[in-house]
Each structure stands twice: as structure tokens, then as C-alpha cells.
């Protein structure tokens, strides 16, 4: 048993989980389970996880080793990676992996290409927005406008999150989607601009942030829960502002 290696494994798994959209309570739990699976004595590894950083410390007879990692903003949400790490930790605990094998497996998970290729994701963005437009009372034809708006919003966020804070990206993306909806209505293609706006911005809603925030609060992770909640509120506010701007502009178009 090598404590450096165990801590390294815990850190790697924790960072990856956090960046792919896992809750902090899950990260703490996974670190605890993985360290035991890797051979640490139960209760010798303690972790404190926040949405932006991980602290892990391990106590042995020779002393205490502590590691700290700063986790920079979420990469892309990827719940399939979260599931895979979950499986890995479970198997490690059952003894199906050694620590070295687990580290290799973790690297493999990290470098996995997204489960669904880019064109499927674009199709999914378009389909979800189009379907929501119709569910919210649009005509079948409005599916197309909603889909276009959703695709536009999705592409803008995907591109902008690399350069700007997330909620600024969401603001501009929602603005793009909503303006497209307003324009299609102003030029007389449709009368359901409301339904189209909703469809276009729906994929931007902070659904995962809200769910994670609630689950963290339930698990007693107050810091993480409140932080995630604030993120969700900011994102929702950004969307609201974008929609307000688009509606305000609409009477002056065409």
C-alpha cells in the first residue's frame, strides 16, 4: 500500500467526477470508498470537497499526508463518465482492480470521447427545443423555428464557455435564441414567439445545478449546496434578462 498512490487515485477520481457534473457529496463518498478499496484503513482518509476544490488527507502511523487540488470550472457535463467512475469505485472496492489498474482505467475514462458524437448532440439540441416549442403550444411548423433557436443557443454556449464565465455565455446564448424567435415572429412566419423562445432557451436551464444543489444540501454539504444554488440562480437570472431584452426589442423589428 502506497499512500501517495492512494491519494493520487482519490484526487484523480474526484476531479474528474466534479468536472463532469457529479455532486460534491458523491465525490466525497467516492473518495472514501475508493481509498478503502485501494487498501487504506477505514476512517484514515478524510476529504472536503467544494465545487471548486478538493482537499484530501490521509493519516497513517508515520504521519498525515494532505493534498489540495483546485478544480477549474466544469468542463462538459458528461453523466456517462460519472456513471463509469461510480462503477469503477464499486469494482475497486470489490477487489476487481488493483490501484495501478484503477489509475489506468481512470485515465482511460478521462480521455474517452463523448458518448454521443457532435452531430447527434446538435440533433438532440434541435429536437429538444423543437419538441418543447410544440408542447408549449406552438404549431407543428413552429418545431422548425424552435429547433433552430435551440441549436443556435447550444452552439453559442458551447463556443463561448471556453472564453467567458458560464453565465455570461448563457446570457448571450439565450439572447441569440430568443432574438431568433422574435425575428421569426416579426417577419410573419409564426404567431407563437413565446413558445419558440421557451423552446430555444430550455436546454440552457441550470437543471443539473439545481438537482445537484438539492442533493448536496440533503447530504449536509451546506457550502457546496448553497454555492451550486447560487450558480443556478445566476444562470436563471441571465436567461431572464436575455428574454426580457428580446421581448423589449420585438416591437421595433420589421
Amino acid at each position, binding site marked *: 500500500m502506497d499512500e501517495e498512490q492512494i491519494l493520487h487515485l482519490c484526487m484523480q477520481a474526484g476531479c474528474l467526477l466534479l468536472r463532469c457534473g457529479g455532486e460534491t457529496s458523491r465525490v466525497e463518498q467516492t473518495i472514501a470508498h475508493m481509498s478503502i478499496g485501494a487498501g487504506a484503513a477505514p476512517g484514515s482518509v478524510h476529504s472536503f470537497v467544494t465545487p471548486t476544490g478538493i482537499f484530501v488527507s490521509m493519516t497513517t502511523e508515520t504521519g498525515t499526508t494532505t493534498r489540495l487540488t483546485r478544480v477549474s470550472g466544469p468542463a462538459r457535463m458528461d*453523466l456517462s463518465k460519472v456513471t463509469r467512475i461510480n462503477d469503477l469505485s464499486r469494482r475497486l472496492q470489490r477487489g476487481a482492480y488493483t490501484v495501478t489498474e484503477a489509475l489506468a482505467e481512470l485515465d482511460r475514462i478521462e480521455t474517452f470521447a*463523448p458518448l454521443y458524437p457532435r452531430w447527434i448532440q446538435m440533433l*438532440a439540441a434541435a429536437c*429538444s427545443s423543437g419538441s*418543447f416549442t410544440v408542447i408549449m403550444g406552438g404549431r407543428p411548423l413552429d418545431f422548425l423555428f424552435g429547433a433552430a433557436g435551440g441549436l443556435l443557443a447550444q452552439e453559442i454556449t458551447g463556443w463561448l464557455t471556453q472564453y467567458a464565465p458560464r453565465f455570461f455565455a448563457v446570457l448571450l446564448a439565450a439572447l441569440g435564441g430568443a432574438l431568433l424567435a422574435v425575428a421569426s415572429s416579426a417577419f410573419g412566419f409564426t404567431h407563437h414567439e*413565446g413558445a419558440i423562445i421557451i423552446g430555444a432557451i*430550455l*436546454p440552457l436551464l441550470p437543471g443539473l445545478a*439545481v*438537482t445537484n444543489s438539492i442533493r448536496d444540501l440533503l447530504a449536509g454539504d451546506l457550502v457546496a449546496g448553497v454555492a451550486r444554488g447560487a450558480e443556478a440562480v445566476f444562470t436563471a437570472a441571465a436567461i431572464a434578462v436575455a428574454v426580457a431584452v428580446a421581448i423589449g426589442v420585438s416591437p421595433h423589428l420589421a
Partner: protein
Amino acid sequence: MIIIVLSMVATVSFAILYQIPARAIVSVGCLGAVAELFAFAAARYHVGQVAASFAASLVVSLLSEALARVQRMPVTVFAVPGIIVLVPGMQAYAAMKDFVVHQYVLGLATGTQTVLIAGALASGLVIAGVLARSVWRPRIHESD
């Protein structure tokens, strides 16, 4: 009927945006349909929207917790896409629209309703989470 199918399409597409594992897709689609069915039935029998949202969210979250344990995947895989069709988009939009045209009182009324519905969705998640945690004692690692 077409609405139910569309809500399944919407839910599954949403799930793909979050990159959920392929073997969860069918169950997630069914969750979306269940949620929409609830919203539909509530409108039919004139149940208040807040109450209906709460009931639907509770059922969807409980199903998510159960599915997560059966399929051994994180709960978020099911709960996040499953609940999305219940989001009060129309009310939020109407409230913003009222504010923009200076109908502040109307906007406040619709806005309050939006917040209440969102709160109902969140409480559904919370209660399902608490129930699940107390019924299924976290075994070594199978809990979530």
C-alpha cells in the same frame, strides 16, 4: 397523444445533451412521458398547477431513485432529464413579458406562480431524496 410522444423526444434529447449512458435512455424517455401525463391529467381535472407540479415531481423523483438503484447509476442521470418537461417555462416567459410592458402587478402575480411551481418541483426532489435515503439504507456503495 402527440404531446406525450413529443415529451419523450424532448426528454431523451435533453438526456443526450447531458451525455447519459445509452442503457438509461429508454427509462429516461418513459420518465418524461410519465411527467407529461401527470401535467396533462392535472389540467384535465382542474388540479392546481402547483399541486400538480409537486405530485408529478415527487413521482418522477421517486421513480428516478428506484431506477438508479435498479440500474446502478447515479440518480441525477434520471432525475435531471425526467423533470425537465415540468419546468414552468410558459409562466416564466409570461412574467418577463408583463414586466417588459410595464404590467408590474400582473408580472408579479405570474412570477410568484412561477417561483411556487419551481419550489414545488424542488420539494418533490427533496422529499423523494429523503424517502429514498431512509428506505434504502446506504449499503456499502450500492446506494448511489
